[in-house]
């Protein structure tokens, strides 16, 4: 008994402590040494800077777009508060991958397999990330999303297999957190949560408790959506502000939303298998075969979700979905009953194949030289007026201003020329607009003023181009004082 307990503690220490720490540290070192394009917390750091300063822009940025996930920002926030950059980015990266390896342990241990299997699976995921050399796959946000997706998928599978209440809670909570991981995972998160009551429909005993599973599994997700709507209403004045970009980005939003949930159809065969196994089984639950069927189907649905986004030309974050799918498939493979040697070989093969596929995906462009653009804009404005103020628009603007210490350039998340003129009366105002390509197209400024980058807008006069950015001057009729001064000067 004591020996068993000792072994249990050792395995727990190994798979829950030692291996995750070693692998996360190894990934961090690898990322620092081998990938210059990779930049930890690229998007989160700029938002955190504003949040820590307590600005309205920070709060608007946190919840203002379904394409910029709030969860990675909230995850990054304590690190940004405690540590300077880039240490904050490294620490957040390390912690995020630690979470992934912990999630792997949780996903495998329910099957009762030995600790070595868990350690192998953890190592395989680290290996996949290293071998693929896909910068986006190594991002903190990707790690968090993958960890949560893994927890959700494994919990749904375990729920179908063993009927443990804790799995409903885990799947429900993971689904809710996934809703904070950006639009690409909205569909899969909804599917995972919807599977909870559906997977329990195989036998009457659990079918009659449909409302309990629905409520317990779905409530966290519904609540999260409610909080998002409320915060958008409070902070941005429009409950659906974070979703408004969809109307601009896709021609038929209704069709698009239907397509986002369409991959759920791929789960139907696995559901039928679950019901049949459940109905024929003696013990509660559908057993490990049904669990594997669900996991594999879920991974396929994730890949299909990525395809849907690509088809509608909004597939900027599909690498995240692909990483999620691969991690879920890898776990499905690890959970199969097979000898250790065969498992190790099959994992190696899987890692090699998947890393080749993942590495072949299009890589995100390396970030432009931020400091040069900021300095050039500031110099341009200073040369024209001592009272200039430049509003740098959107999330791209927050990223541009990450290392900026001056006061001339300020971020702006929700452009209202009239409000700016009232707030900064008497100053010479400028607006710096990013080029609307890729995810920048989803910025609120483009669904409010679609042609602003090319044509400017009311009271906006093109001033100068700085790399991919266009600077516009806000022009206005002179005030009475300015007119008097002008007349006097003449």
């Amino acid at each position, binding site marked *: 008994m004591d020996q068993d307990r000792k072994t249990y503690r050792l395995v727990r220490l190994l798979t829950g402590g030692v291996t995750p720490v070693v692998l996360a540290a190894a990934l961090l070192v690898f990322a620092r040494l081998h990938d210059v394009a990779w930049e930890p917390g690229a998007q989160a750091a700029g938002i955190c800077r504003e*949040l*820590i*300063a*307590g600005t309205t822009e920070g709060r608007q940025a946190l919840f203002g777009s379904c394409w910029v996930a709030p969860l990675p920002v*909230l995850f990054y*926030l304590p690190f940004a*508060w405690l540590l300077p950059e880039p240490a904050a980015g490294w620490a957040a990266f390390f912690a995020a991958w630690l979470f992934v390896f912990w999630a792997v342990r949780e996903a495998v241990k329910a099957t009762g397999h030995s600790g070595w299997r868990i350690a192998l699976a953890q190592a395989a995921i680290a290996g996949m990330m290293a071998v693929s050399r896909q910068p986006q796959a190594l991002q903190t946000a990707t790690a968090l999303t993958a960890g949560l997706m893994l927890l959700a998928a494994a919990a749904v599978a375990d729920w179908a297999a063993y009927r443990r*209440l*804790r799995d*409903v*809670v885990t799947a429900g909570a993971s689904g809710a957190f996934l809703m904070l991981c950006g639009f690409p995972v909205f569909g899969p998160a909804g599917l995972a949560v919807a599977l909870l009551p559906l997977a329990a429909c195989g036998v009457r005993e659990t079918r009659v*408790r449909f*409302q*309990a599973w629905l*409520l*317990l599994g779905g*409530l*966290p997700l519904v*609540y999260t959506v409610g*909080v998002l709507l409320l915060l958008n209403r*409070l902070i941005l004045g429009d409950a659906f502000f974070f979703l408004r970009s969809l109307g601009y980005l896709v021609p038929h939003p209704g069709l698009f939303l239907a397509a986002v949930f369409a991959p759920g159809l791929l789960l139907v065969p696995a559901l039928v298998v679950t019901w049949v196994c459940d109905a024929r089984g003696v013990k509660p639950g559908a057993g490990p075969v049904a669990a594997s069927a669900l996991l594999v189907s879920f991974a396929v649905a994730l890949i299909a979700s990525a395809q849907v986004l690509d088809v509608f030309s909004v597939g900027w974050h599909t690498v995240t979905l692909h990483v999620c799918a691969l991690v879920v498939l890898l776990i499905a493979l690890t959970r199969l009953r097979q000898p250790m040697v065969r498992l190790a070989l099959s994992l190696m093969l899987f890692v090699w194949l998947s890393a080749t596929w993942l590495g072949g995906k299009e890589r995100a462009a390396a970030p432009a030289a931020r400091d040069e653009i900021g300095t050039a804009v500031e110099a341009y404005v200073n040369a024209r007026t001592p009272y200039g103020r430049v509003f740098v628009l959107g999330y791209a603007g927050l990223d541009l201003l990450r290392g900026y210490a001056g006061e001339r350039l300020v971020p702006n998340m929700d452009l209202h020329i009239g409000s700016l003129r009232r707030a900064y009366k008497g100053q010479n105002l400028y607006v710096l607009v990013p080029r609307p390509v890729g995810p920048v197209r989803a910025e609120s400024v483009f669904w409010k003023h679609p042609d602003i980058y090319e044509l400017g807008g009311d009271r906006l006069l093109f001033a100068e181009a700085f790399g991919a950015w266009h600077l516009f001057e806000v022009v206005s009729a002179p005030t009475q004082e300015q007119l008097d001064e002008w007349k006097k000067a003449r």
Partner: protein
Amino acid sequence: MSVVNDPQQAPPKTASSVDPLELSHRRPDWSASQPMTRTQKTVTVALLAGLAVAFLCWPQQTARGLIAACTLFYVIMTLYKFVVIRASLSPNAILRFSPQEIAAQEPRAWPLFSVLVPMYKEPETVKQMVASLASMDYPADKKDVQILLEADDAVTLAAARALTMPPGFRVTEIPASFPRTKPKACNIGLHLAEGEYLVIYDAEDLPEKDQLKKAVLAFETSPANVACVQSRLNYYNPRQNVLTRWFTAEYSAWFDLQLPGLAALGAVIPLGGTSNHFKTRILQELMGWDAYNVTEDCDLGVRLGRAGYTTRMLETTTWEEACSVFWSWIKQRTRWQKGYIQTWFVHMRDPLKLLKELGPVNFLHYQLLIGGVTFSVLVNPVFWLMALVWFVFRPEGVAQLFPGPVFAAGAACLFLGNFVFVYINLLGCCKRKTDSLMWWALLTPLYWMMMSYSGWRAVIQFFRDPFVWEKTQHGMVKKS
């Protein structure tokens, strides 16, 4: 070895020869007979005066400091709930015995089991209670049931006398004296108890038939330092009205999730009012219950912890009657919260000694469970009001009280913490398989407002009438 089982050592005791206030006489430092010591009064007044001065001199800084401290407290409480609920999933959180395991014990000699049933002015429940205890699956000659009735409670005495008591049942008359509380009656019952083990049931309780056998097995299979086994409590009238629905949801979460979680963590457990099974000898060593404490069960749980004993949870349910009348509920909750305040002050008379006796982890459990829960009930309305004002009017003044990190932590507590607390109730209902109550559990925040009201009522009563025992009226199910 039982002190009272050996007739050679002590003369036969009668109710009038027992000192029901033994604890307060022999260990006044463990009793709430003096609600606050002089030092505690001085420190409390000094703290309040200091706060008042700080508010006068530096109002904004003081408010910011207090809000930051409260936010930190909320964060800790939310994380604590997470830890406790996670621990409740542990296989050793609760002691389980299947019917097969119990049946496999037979034939065997079961030990004598004492059952105490304190009653006061509840004539309508006597018959049901006797029938319920008589039908319990335990040898009749091994039951030692005492119905504890106040000598001046003529109606209940008459109802008891009108019944033909089964074997092993007796009525113990409690001489009228101050304080007039349940623990005082129980102390007399404890001294007259003859069993190796002892349990308390309320008059309206319906314990599961095999509960006594499960308790015996629990003691026999647990380490020697397990002095108490707490059964789970739940209500047999959850659907009577909205109040009983909320109450049942709360009890399901408390007894099915939180107490097992605490037991798994080895924490000090604030015992439930009934269905706690004790080793009689240990309870007698600890001088029973504090007759001056209006939540004597909670206090006893802490004293067990201080004496080095532990409490385990047992998977068996005692069905009770949920309070269904608003004012009765308020009075009952006021008493419970007043009792928690009493208990906190009693054991905090010498914090260092408490820390030494409980150990640092259990000391923290004690602070969060006994002090923390009461404190949160009291400060909640202030934060709800601030949140409401901020949502509706968005005044700059409120925003200035929450600097960056405090705002972030406060928002997390508001949106995540409150949800977690509601969700725990839902989970409790689901675990209890009372699915229809889950929808009602969503409205728990309204129930919290009632708790805050009774919390403040408890604070006032603690200073004005510390020993007043507001009796909960039972039998409302039948009346309705």
